[in-house]
């Protein structure tokens, strides 16, 4: 197939912060199709965040090539909203920097808030929102950029299990409605199996792709479904073997 279908194309990518420090990423090759939902799974030190920073063009690889079909947007564990702006203004700022016409910004920001089920939060300041609500505003802000590729760096790791479960459902709904390509980094095996079409397990120090699973489970999946649990426990065994290697 033509590369026109690819959102991300990594070839033999390596990263070392300087010559004396250990290799962080070692010869990663990966292709992600447009509209795909891929989960990267790994223990601490596997260079997941470094990889996302390189994809988001915040950092450069030491060697190898990175091709992205368009500049991606990136979300963090912390919603990182501007505390002096309201929820709506945070989204308007993203629209403004993306060059969205002024007259339509407010309406578009409200639409995006409705998409993440926060129709009444336009005028709320970040500190007036719960952690889950802030993270949803952050999703809306990322969508405002209309970038097509969404990188997520453990976005739900700091949330409680109930809120996280809700956000999984909301994220999948948004992903289905749009043609977004999602690369979702997590250290939570069940989360990866719950969300991804594909799960890639990474090794730590140096970061390499160890194994890959295509997830063909019925939709909608629940995090407590037996199929999810079975696959998660299989992946967990691989993850544990990888961790033991460092002991």
């Amino acid at each position, binding site marked *: 197939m033509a590369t026109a279908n690819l959102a991300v194309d990594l070839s033999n990518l390596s990263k070392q912060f300087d010559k004396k420090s250990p290799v962080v990423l070692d010869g990663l090759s990966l292709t992600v199709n447009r509209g795909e939902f891929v989960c990267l799974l790994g223990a601490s030190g596997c260079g997941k965040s470094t990889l996302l920073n390189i994809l*988001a063009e*915040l950092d450069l690889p030491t060697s190898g090539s990175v091709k992205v079909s368009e*500049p991606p*947007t*990136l979300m*963090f564990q*912390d919603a*990182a909203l*501007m*505390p*002096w702006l309201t929820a709506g203004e945070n989204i308007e*700022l*993203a629209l*403004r*920097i*993306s060059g969205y016409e002024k007259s339509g910004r407010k309406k578009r920001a409200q639409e995006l808030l409705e998409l993440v*089920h*926060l129709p009444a939060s336009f005028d709320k*300041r*970040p*500190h*007036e*929102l*719960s*952690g*889950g*609500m802030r993270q949803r505003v952050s999703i809306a*802000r990322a969508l405002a*950029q209309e970038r097509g590729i969404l990188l997520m760096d453990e976005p739900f790791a700091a949330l409680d299990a*109930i*809120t996280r479960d*809700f956000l999984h*459902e*909301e994220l999948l*709904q948004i992903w289905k409605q749009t043609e977004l390509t999602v690369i979702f980094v997590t250290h939570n095996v069940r989360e990866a199996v719950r969300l991804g079409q594909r799960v890639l397990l990474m090794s730590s120090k140096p970061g390499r792709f160890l194994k890959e699973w295509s997830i063909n489970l019925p939709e*909608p999946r629940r995090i407590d479904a037996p199929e999810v649990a079975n696959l998660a426990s299989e992946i967990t065994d691989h993850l544990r073997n990888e961790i033991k290697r460092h002991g």
Partner: protein
Amino acid sequence: MANHSNHQSELGLLSAGLDALETQSSTDVTLFKRVLKHAGPILAILFFVGAWQIVFNLKLTPDYVLPSPGQVFTSLKNQYEQGILIPSAWNSLRRGFQGFIFAILIATPIGLLLGVNKNVRLVLKPIITGLQQLPSVAWVPAAIIWFGLSNATIYTVILLGAVPSIANGLSSGIDQIPTQLLKVGKVLGANRWQSIRFIILPASLPGFLGGLEQGWAFAWRSLMAAELIAVSPALGVGLGQLLDVGRQLGDMALVLGAIISIMFVGVLVERVFFSPIRERTLRVRGL
């Protein structure tokens, strides 16, 4: 399709419930705290004036060393009736504000440069800090030699007092910006100018305000020192000059009256101007 929209409303309901559970209502400040905030300082002043009156009544020293609160009040009243007090206070305040505005215009680009450019900071920071440490009254003799007894002398001293504080406040405000917010700026695609305008400047506002507040205090002190030393008919009246008149006449009531007026103007500016801005800024950010 029906199934799809059902699913959506299910998510909507779930969301509404979760949000209601997780959003805490703000706690009200107790009545006692509010009364204490406004009435407390007044009570403290009354207590202090009462103690002063008691010490005066003990007649430990002659009146010209420690006049009574009433004598100080009378002295200020005389100055007011002669049309000196208000023009003096107004003149000082006007000079102070003009100098302060100049100081902001000069210090803001310096602070911004110190904050965003590490190399500029390495080179300039020690000089700025040195200037900040130096009491600006030390510049009065030099300024008089350069500019004579003129307004230029007074503004020079105000600027040298206020600029370093404001510049340092802004640059440390920039230092305290969480790196995550700067990273968001890059992810959003902000260019250098957009990142300064939409992220760095607003994010550093609390530090900048702190610098402005300290800058004003330094400007006001420097102004008083300059007015006290640089006395000339060409400069007109001012609270510092009023203090000097009291010293020359050996009029302790007038000296104390002038000191109280200087403090009063300082507190008034803080209460009317800085305090509301600071409280609003912090409240908006949930700090």
